[in-house]
């Protein structure tokens, strides 16, 4: 095909389309559909992986169209090496644009069984890596960078017109991408759109839902109720407070649902709400961050800090994490995979802390073995919360490699 013909085709409008289109698209594809009343199905496929996966792509197109009952018309696929779950999402998205009321769903196989219960309530949430919900290429390797959590984001990183595409893509990613040990978080949209997000995705392995721009407890309750109407599974919640009003109501928001496990703050929107610039020193948001920590601790939740937006400034990030830890935060949002290890390093306990924590844990184990109710170290009695804190410190030291797995052997 000549270049001109190709350009003409690329510019050709289809009544229904989904995905990403253009010569520079990689690891994604675009699907256009023009249904007809007769004449059978005509399939046009252009793919950078034609040599390797052309046949399987054609088979998949046939399967997807059959599922929705598309028998006549044109299906055009422009593929830049979309992985199967991405390709399936784009085709489903285009077909659902033809039949918005169809109940058909084309689900990829799950990488592992979706469990009834997520991980522990108070697991580490030191780093949570944001993944723009409509950018498939970032999903596959996200877990390799070792974040405690990945956030599949349907909110600010997804353009309004792409919300539907992103929802289906995220659902498929939840099922089939191996996110390893990372907690699978989902950031939904505000209001009714957020409930649609949940309907599409929550059954497919979401472990925690971030609710954006929360200003009152009833917003959390609404999400809680909606999840209960969909699934029996336990799903945790993390409200994000991003306004002055939200800060005023922080304590109520923190206590709004038994599903709440953490509370966090969005500083870009918060400073915009105050009408002041966000500074490196952060004096304008110090009060709000203190409130978040207090509200979280009072409700027994983890307090998690906002993101650090300069991905190049590694020292700035490390300093910002140390400052957050000093305020009482236990985690930080990451907008680039390379931020993860910096956040973990900055949150790692000091060697002296680790040493003391080990001594306390050993004393606790000895007390248990001896059947003693009271733990003591030297001449001092150790309270249960101190033991718990020491256990967490030891676990973190093991996670960061400061301690060997079998340190107490």
């Amino acid at each position, binding site marked *: 095909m000549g270049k001109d013909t190709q350009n003409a085709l690329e510019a050709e409008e289809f009544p229904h389309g989904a995905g990403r289109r253009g010569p520079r698209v990689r690891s994604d594809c675009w699907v256009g559909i023009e249904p007809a009343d007769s004449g059978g199905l005509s399939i046009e496929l252009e793919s950078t992986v034609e040599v390797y996966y052309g046949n399987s792509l054609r088979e998949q197109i046939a399967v997807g169209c059959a599922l929705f009952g598309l028998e006549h018309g044109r299906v055009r696929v422009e593929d830049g090496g979309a*992985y199967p779950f991405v390709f399936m999402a784009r085709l489903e998205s285009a077909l659902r644009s033809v039949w918005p009321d169809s109940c058909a769903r084309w689900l990829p196989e799950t990488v592992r069984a979706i469990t009834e219960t997520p991980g522990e309530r108070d697991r580490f949430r030191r780093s949570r890596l944001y993944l723009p919900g409509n950018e498939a290429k970032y999903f596959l390797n996200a877990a*390799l960078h070792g974040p405690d959590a990945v956030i599949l984001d349907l909110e600010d990183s997804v353009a309004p017109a792409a919300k539907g595409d992103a929802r289906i893509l995220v659902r498929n990613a939840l099922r089939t991408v191996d996110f390893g040990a990372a907690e699978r978080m989902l950031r939904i949209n505000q209001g009714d759109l957020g409930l649609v997000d949940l309907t599409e995705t929550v059954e497919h392995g979401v472990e925690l839902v971030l609710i954006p721009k929360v200003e009152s407890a009833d917003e959390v309750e609404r999400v809680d109720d909606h999840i209960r109407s969909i699934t029996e599974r336990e799903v945790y919640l993390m409200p994000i407070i991003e306004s002055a009003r939200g800060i005023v109501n922080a304590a109520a928001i923190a206590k709004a649902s038994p599903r709440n496990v953490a509370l966090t703050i969005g500083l870009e929107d918060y400073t915009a709400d105050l009408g002041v610039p966000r500074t490196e020193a952060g004096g304008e948001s110090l009060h709000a961050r203190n409130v978040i920590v207090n509200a979280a601790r009072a409700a027994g939740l983890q307090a998690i800090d906002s993101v650090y937006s300069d991905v190049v400034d590694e020292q700035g990030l490390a300093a910002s994490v140390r400052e957050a830890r000093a305020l009482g935060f236990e985690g930080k949002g990451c907008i*680039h995979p390379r931020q993860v290890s910096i956040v973990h390093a900055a949150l790692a306990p000091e060697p002296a802390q680790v040493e003391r924590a080990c001594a306390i844990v050993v004393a606790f184990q000895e007390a248990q073995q001896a059947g003693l109710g009271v733990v003591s170290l030297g001449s001092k009695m150790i309270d249960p919360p101190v033991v718990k804190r020491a256990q967490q410190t030891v676990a973190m030291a093991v996670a960061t490699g400061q301690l060997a797995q079998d340190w107490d052997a």
Partner: protein
Amino acid sequence: MSELLKTVLGRPVPALINGRQAIPFAGVGARRPQGNRAPQIINTCADYPADGDKRVGSLREALERCGFTDGMTISTHHHFRNGDLVANQVFDIAAEMGLRDLMWLPSASFPCHEPQVAHMESGVIHHIEGSMNGPLGAYCSRGAMAGLGVLRSHGGRWQAIQDGEVPIDIAVIAAPTADFFGNATGDRGPSACGLLGFALADSLYARHVIVVTDNLVPFPCLPWQIQGNNVDCVVEVERVGDPEKIVSGTTRVTKSPDRLLIAEHAARFVRDAGILREGFSFQAGAGGTALAFGIYLKEMMKEAGVKAGFVRGGSNQYLVEMLEEGLTPVILDGQTFDLEGVRSMRENAGHQNTSPFTSYNYHGKGCFASMLDVVILGATEVDTSFNANVVTHTDGRLLHGIGGWQNCLAAKCTILAVPSFRNRIPVVLDEVTTLCGPGELIDVVATERGVCINPRRRDLVDAMAGSRVPLLDIHDLKREVERICGGAPARPAFGEQVVAAIQWVDGTTIDSVRAT
């Protein structure tokens, strides 16, 4: 259609390569090359100006004086990379003179050499023996070239010239600085490229040698990397190269988080396997991942308080920093990748220019490649037997030269730093499309998903016990890649026609490339 033979690894190779008998690859170390060096015609000072002034008026005049005629083999070097302005001119002149059936023997080709396609179509160039990528690779891959493409490593090219396998009629050496006698250097002048090591064999063994420069200096040109005593004519031109395309102003490290992770895995492997120790040596290429590897390694060297004994370039600003910060006493440099490398070569006594003879030639009394503790290389594909491909894409099209890649496999530890898949194209396969390096020489495959150690290297497996670097069986990695990509990729349908031969470092033929 020439008869096909099989290598010891079962790969088909043509029995005849451009009229020469091919020797199929028989195994690593199986062939002991013998014989004499290529005979050299003895010249006499009586035929050269006593005042040493070998200048002639134009490149055409120089070529004519060297007896430029049909069927000759013409060599050029690639130190100007994509900024070369000389190689194309030689064949434009050949076309003007109505010559035909020339063979071009570049030390490598670049996209700037696309005009050679027209010279092949018109019959001026019969075929190319050298790396082919971009438009030249596409032309050769579709079977349009009159002769077979022959791809050799840098060491293999030296060996082929030295052994007389490929006699060069005229070597045209573009030089950033030269004097009228033909002494030449690459480390200074407006088109400075660092060194001229890839042209050294040509200057020693070609029947005729022409030096072309845009920076003529009074005799003697110091230092001289090319000795004027080997040169027939000197031509002064306005420009030999486009400086912006010769070396990059600054070297760019990859920003891709996944490639950084590959580099980090490779560097942590080198540290945890105990290779990183006082006096060790390493070589990393110029790609983004290799550069990032160097940066991680440097941090680890500082942490461990360890200094290298020597490092091998491709030099760049990062290697120069290591030299100038005292982390290595020496850079043994084969080609310079950025302006910092060029500056350092001029200014630092420890920045030594080298050639394929010192670094890579297998037909000699040793070479540096086998002395290296560790080398980091790329690849387009690797299979579960650790065989690797560096010249073709998975669809079989030629897209890279071999460069020093095959030669570097002689290092004590060879690490391929590669993604396990790219845009749904698996890199880890059951069998590589083109076999350029035998798996027994490839010790480690470092990917974003973890590090695979060749089971032959029990010592490395043992050394990594207790390391936190994720270690993987290569078969498990392949299964994971196929799960992600949607099964094993279908293999391309190749035509019958062999379009190129892949030579091994000992002069045997290790694989062939067929038309796509």
